[in-house]
């Protein structure tokens, strides 16, 4: 658009329709009418003017002088391109800053060096007419209103918030809603808006709109389909409109429903009659009368009353709840088998040492945490130079007689906190405990299928009546005894001494009864503290089992069994406590008498084997117990027959522990073979295998036992005896030999699938054969020899089989390892503005620094501007002052001059007058 400024101005004014050719009268009238319909015409005009004014001021915008440097495609809306081109609006910014300073800094400057005070803006503080109450009430209401206004701004469900939604003080939806649709957000721009007091903002918005319009115009030219991006405001308005619409629809539906209900109400008597007729057989005499009455509808009031009562009854009725369907026997059995199967699967999983995913994740996290120091994201790829954790296998620290390298400070492997669980944990305990709880609730429910659950132990005591009986709630009340002299009530023992005190005078075999009663009395359902008490009690019970075991009598074993089962049952509720009790026992045992186990220890180890799953890859109680057993078997050099007997018991136990998982116990083989060699009447001529042989103490070898009958070993054999009669000794030796033979047989059956079965049991075969050879067999009873021969044949057969099924090892059919790549990492969507610092802390630091720098610069600039502003203001004030002074000075001068003039005039006049007088006189 060529031409002078003036021409251009004119053209644009015309374009906007502000000036134009002169209009006829008719046109004017039409215009006036239109204006009435669109009251914002004038506003539009003003806006257009302002935009034209801006267009002609080239200093209003800061833009790229040569336009954008490169043509780029972005995902930002295209209509913002104009906005992107404008870098800033210096005039506007300056005006804004100036304004802000005037509001803040200037005020401060003016108030400087002046004694100030508070301005009391409280309502009615200065009003003497208002009473205190009125003031308070008024203030309270105002406060409430203020709070309410804020909260209900977008409260869609509020019925009439502030008399309808408003925008810029105007109601959004008037009566003529359909006529005035959602208004453009810029329409009300010129109205005084509360929060935008400064005009600059309004100005900016106006500019924006202008730009938008321009852009839209361009687009329209291009494709004729304007697609404007909705502003937030618009979206909100739409949302609000929609919600209102839905609300209205709901109301309409409700009304409709109401109408329908009214209709139904009308038809109610008939319907009711029909219903009642259907329900009640006509044979009854009362009801028909009633129904008849209802049908006839004679007594209106009575019918209404009746109806009300019925409605109330219905309301008061307990709502029917869906009942669990009664399961059939098959279903129950199926469920049970499913549950068992699940548990079995879990056991197998634990046995293989597989972890649950959750656990694994946890572990990995822990590992990640502990490895955090390393920081490098090396992924799964193997790093040959990465040092491995010292305790990778969870072996612990080893024997401490030499300082380790770490202690000497040679390497920093401390960085890896030892994660013992890496290998050794992996039991799905959390899940288990959940299950357990489930089980618990099952048990507490309608009695589970196991006869061996909680119910069995407290059965017959914990009946409803008993729970309610106050006698059972109190501890020391009325100690009634039953026919065995066992009181019905006990205090709950919290230590083993307590337990002994309580059980004083009660026959040991009756202990289970007492335990049963205690468990019933302190059932966790009865008192919240009982859970704790029972947990303690379960630990005491473990101690008591060991105690009884140490002082055992042969007829106590059913009692011990029953107590062990009690502990087992308690362990379901208190697994941690019971496990701790067992672990404490093992620890004490290992510290005080690792190689001199008592019968109590044996009983405890047996109980552990029965209580906990011994097949687990790792178990907090079983693993130490198994280690303790192995330690005895491996390290004890038997001195007397009792040592052999104890070892035999432990061998049986070890084998029983491994019955399911079939894990190999080298110590068991060592002990059994060594024992057989020691008991053999003659020393073997050559080495029978790689097991260590200890020369037996004198008198251990079996001599002249050919007439002895074979008996079974019992626990009293494990106790140190002062003296054994020769017959007893021989019979004990034969018993040990026979039991060991049986163990070996059981071991072959357990382990015959192991890969080195041949190597493991060939020595056993040799030892057994050695026992059956001539010089030995003459000393042994025939029954034992035949047993030996039987075992030999079994082992020989299995060895043959093992040989037949042996194949060369093929352990390394692994997928070949990928060679580690060193290709640099490429960022798919690289952004040069972004920082790709792999070191997170450093990146954050850089970010902070940049921000600090920016802020600092900004602050400096602001300060400088402030200073300039102050200077300016000071100058202005000074100028004003000077001007005032000047004015005053001038005024004074003028005043004086005036007076002087007047005086001069007066003088001149006087002079003139005198002259005249003199002339007259003359």
């Amino acid at each position, binding site marked *: 658009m060529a031409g002078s400024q003036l021409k251009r101005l004119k053209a644009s004014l015309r374009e906007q329709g502000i000036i134009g050719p002169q209009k006829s009268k008719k046109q004017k009238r039409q215009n006036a009418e239109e204006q009435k319909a669109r009251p914002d015409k004038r506003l539009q005009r003003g806006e257009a003017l302002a935009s034209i004014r801006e267009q002609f001021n080239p200093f209003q915008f800061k833009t790229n002088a040569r336009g954008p440097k490169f043509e780029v495609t972005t995902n930002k809306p295209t209509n913002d391109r104009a906005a992107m081109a404008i870098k800033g609006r210096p005039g506007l910014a300056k005006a804004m800053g100036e304004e802000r300073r005037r509001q803040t800094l200037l005020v401060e400057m003016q108030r400087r060096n002046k004694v100030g005070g508070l301005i009391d803006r409280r309502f009615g503080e200065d009003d003497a007419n208002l009473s205190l109450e009125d003031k308070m009430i008024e203030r309270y209401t105002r406060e409430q209103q203020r709070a309410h206004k804020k909260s209900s701004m977008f409260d869609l469900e509020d019925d009439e918030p502030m008399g309808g939604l408003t925008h810029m003080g105007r109601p959004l939806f008037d009566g003529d809603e359909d006529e005035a649709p959602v208004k453009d957000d810029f329409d009300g721009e010129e109205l005084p808006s509360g929060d935008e007091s400064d005009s600059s903002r309004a100005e900016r918005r106006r500019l924006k709109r202008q730009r938008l319009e321009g852009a839209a115009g361009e687009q329209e030219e291009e494709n004729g389909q304007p697609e404007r991006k909705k502003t937030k405001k618009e979206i909100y308005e739409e949302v609000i409109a929609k919600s209102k619409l839905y609300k209205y629809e709901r109301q309409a539906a409700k009304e409709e429903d109401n109408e329908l209900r009214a209709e139904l109400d009308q038809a109610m008597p008939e319907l009711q009659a029909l219903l009642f007729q259907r329900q009640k057989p006509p044979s009854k005499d009362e009801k028909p009368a009633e129904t008849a009455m209802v049908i006839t509808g004679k007594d209106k009031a009575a019918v209404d009353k009746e109806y009300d009562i019925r409605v109330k009854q219905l309301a008061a009725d307990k709502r029917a709840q869906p009942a669990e369907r009664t399961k059939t026997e098959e279903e129950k059995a199926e469920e049970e088998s499913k549950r068992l199967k699940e548990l079995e699967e879990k056991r197998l999983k634990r046995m293989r*040492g597989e972890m649950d995913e959750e656990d694994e994740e946890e572990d990995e996290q822990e590992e990640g945490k502990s490895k955090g120091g390393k920081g490098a994201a090396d992924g799964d790829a193997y790093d*040959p130079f990465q040092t491995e954790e*010292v305790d990778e*296998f*969870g*072996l*612990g*620290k*080893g024997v401490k007689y*030499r300082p380790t390298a770490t202690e000497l400070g040679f390497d920093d492997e401390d960085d890896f906190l030892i994660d*013992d669980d890496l290998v*050794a944990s992996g*039991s*799905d*305990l959390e899940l*288990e*405990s959940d299950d357990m709880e489930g089980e618990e609730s099952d048990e507490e429910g309608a009695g589970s299928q*196991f006869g061996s659950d909680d119910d069995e132990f407290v059965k017959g005591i914990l009946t409803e009546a008993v729970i309610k009986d106050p006698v059972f709630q109190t501890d020391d009340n009325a100690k009634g005894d039953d026919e065995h002299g066992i009181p019905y009530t006990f205090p709950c023992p919290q230590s083993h001494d307590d337990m002994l005190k309580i059980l004083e005078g009660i026959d040991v075999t009756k202990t289970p009864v007492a335990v049963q009663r205690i468990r019933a009395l302190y059932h966790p359902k009865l008192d919240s503290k009982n859970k704790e008490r029972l947990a303690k009690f379960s630990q005491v019970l473990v101690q008591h089992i060991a105690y009884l075991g140490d002082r055992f009598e*042969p007829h106590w074993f059913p009692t011990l069994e029953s107590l062990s089962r009690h502990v*087992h049952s308690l362990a379901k509720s208190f*697994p*941690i406590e019971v*496990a701790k009790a067992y*672990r404490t026992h*093992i620890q004490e045992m*290992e510290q005080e008498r*690792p190689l001199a186990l008592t019968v109590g220890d044996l009983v405890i180890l047996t109980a552990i084997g*029965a*209580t*906990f*799953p011994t097949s687990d890859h790792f*178990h907090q109680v079983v*693993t*130490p117990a198994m*280690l*303790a057993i192995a*330690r005895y078997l491996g*390290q004890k050099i038997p001195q007397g027959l009792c040592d052999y007997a104890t070892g035999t018991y432990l061998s049986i136990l070890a084998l029983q522990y*491994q019955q399911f998982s079939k894990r*190999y116990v*080298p110590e068991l083989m060592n002990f059994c073979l060594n024992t057989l060699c020691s008991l053999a009447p003659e020393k073997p001529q050559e080495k029978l295998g*790689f097991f*260590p042989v200890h020369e037996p103490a004198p008198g251990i070898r079996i001599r002249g036992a050919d007439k002895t009958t074979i008996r*079974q*070993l019992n626990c009293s054999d494990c106790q140190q005896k002062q003296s054994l009669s020769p017959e007893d000794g021989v019979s004990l030796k034969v018993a040990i030999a026979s*039991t060991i033979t*049986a*163990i070996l047989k*059981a071991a072959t059956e357990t382990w015959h699938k*192991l*890969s*080195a079965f041949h*190597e*493991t049991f060939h020595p056993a075969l040799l030892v057994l054969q050695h026992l059956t050879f001539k010089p030995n067999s003459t000393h042994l009873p025939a029954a034992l020899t035949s047993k030996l021969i039987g075992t030999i044949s079994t082992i020989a057969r299995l060895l043959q089989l093992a*040989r037949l099924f042996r*194949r060369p090892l*093929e*352990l*390394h059919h*692994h997928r070949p390892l990928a060679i580690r790549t060193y290709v640099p990492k490429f960022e798919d969507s690289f952004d040069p503005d972004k920082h790709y610092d792999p070191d997170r802390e450093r990146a954050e630091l850089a970010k902070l620094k940049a921000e600090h720098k920016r802020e600092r610069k900004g602050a400096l600039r602001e300060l400088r501007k402030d200073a300039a502003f102050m200077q300016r203001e000071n100058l202005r004030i000074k100028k004003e002052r000077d001007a005032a002074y000047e004015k005053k000075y001038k005024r004074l001068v003028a005043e004086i001059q005036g007076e002087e003039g007047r005086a001069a005039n007066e003088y001149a006049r006087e002079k003139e007058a005198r002259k005249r007088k003199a002339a007259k006189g003359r």
Partner: protein
Amino acid sequence: MPAAVGEAAAKTAVKRKRHENGDIIKKRTKSDANAHDKDGNLKARIEKLETEVQESKKHYNNIATLVELARKHGTDAKAALLASEALCRIFIRLLAAGNLVKRKDVSEKEATVTSWLRDRLADCRGALLSMFQSKKLASSALMLAMALLKAEAQHLSDREEAVFPRYFFSDIVASLLESPIGQLREQFSEKFVDEYHDIRFYTFEAIRTYLTEREDAVDEDIQITVFDMLISIENVPESSEDLTDFYIEPPQKKKHPLRSLSQHKKQAQQAWLALMHLGLSKEQRKKVLDVMAASIAPWFTQPELLMDFLTDCYNSGGSISLLALSGVFYLIQERNLDYPEFYTKLYSLLDADILHSKYRSRFFRLLDTFLGSSHLPAVLVASFIKRLARLALNAPPSAIVVIVPWFYNLFKRHPLTTFMMHRVPRTKEERDLLESEGLEDPFLPDERDPMETRAIDSCLWEIVQLQSHYHPNVATIAKIISEQFTKQAYSLEDFLDHSYGSLIEAEMTKEVKKPPVVEYMIPKRIFTKAGPVPEENDSLLVNLWDFGSS
């Protein structure tokens, strides 16, 4: 100056004694007032005797009285102590004054006095040495004797330089060795032998002369004490420059034996040889071997002298062999000892007891060194692997834990041996044969020569079996051989020092945080036999053990 030092030493000893006496006196109640008085008298008397000797030559006879007193330590210990202290002071002063030096230019009378004084000095020494036998006095007697030794060295001869009184010192050492008090020797080693290089030198000499002189008469106890004493002498000097700490300043001569490292070593070597000539008991031999490489062999200028001893020990078998191994290795390493069939011998050491022995970790450290070379024939390495795998079948967990990572390292070093883990039958005939007849282990366990055992044709079924070891961690370690060999090597030190105790300890230190799994089925029977119900099976325990219920 040195005289002053000696005196000071004597005085400190005296002071300490006095102090102790004071303590004792304090403790005494008044009922013992008489004894107190007596003590006071005694003390006053001895002091008087001492001052008189100082005052004039007339009272030299007091010395004889004091010697008498000192000799009677068996009856009156306190008096003897006081007397010997006084004697020491007197003699140190006399020595410093040169009264005991024999001079030619003096009159006969004075020469007589001198020789008389010398005799008394000898008496005094004798008294001090005899005090070594008494528990109460031994320690202070030793201090006094050493102080006297120093004074004698400096002033007894009229030469400028100090002369070490060897005879007196060898007497001291002899009395020390014969003394029943162990602490005394400890004190001696601690305060003198470890501190002063010349004392160490002369101690070795004295021990050697002592042992050689009474070769036949040395009894077991003495042998043990000598052994302990020699063992306790550590810190072999590195070079002649290190020899700086002397109790008595040696002659300035550069060539003097005290200033030469080789002479020191020679003395030590001779002392050790003298001891070994006596013939050691088994226990002693074990002890000697235990410290051989660390503290004995470095003393030897000619370690070859140990060769016979070591090879004998090595050939004797058992734990002695194990212990001798490190000595033999020292010789091989340092002295280029050629030991024929070393590996055969080493292989024969791998017997049933080795993994149960308490020297296991020590042995493994050495074994790791011996088999560390990558130039060893794979057949030999395979034999070692296979033999140890066999042994592992009967080994405690702590041993298995070492063996398997060690195997791993060997496999890495000798890739040929990995066929023991992975051997795929190649031909159809082979496969058919396997199907029909199975496989006999080609390994010959009784073969003594590791080159002939055919272990390389065998497989490690044993380790695969240990993958189902009862201890979870051991099982996991055993699994490393069937996983990919991605690690360079395992550091053996991490696995060496374990035992049952430490394994249990490791388990026990873990807190129980998660509730442990409990067997979901409560067993009906634990100790009692099942009833006649047919489906119930008795557990192994109930079958094999009598719990009194049957």
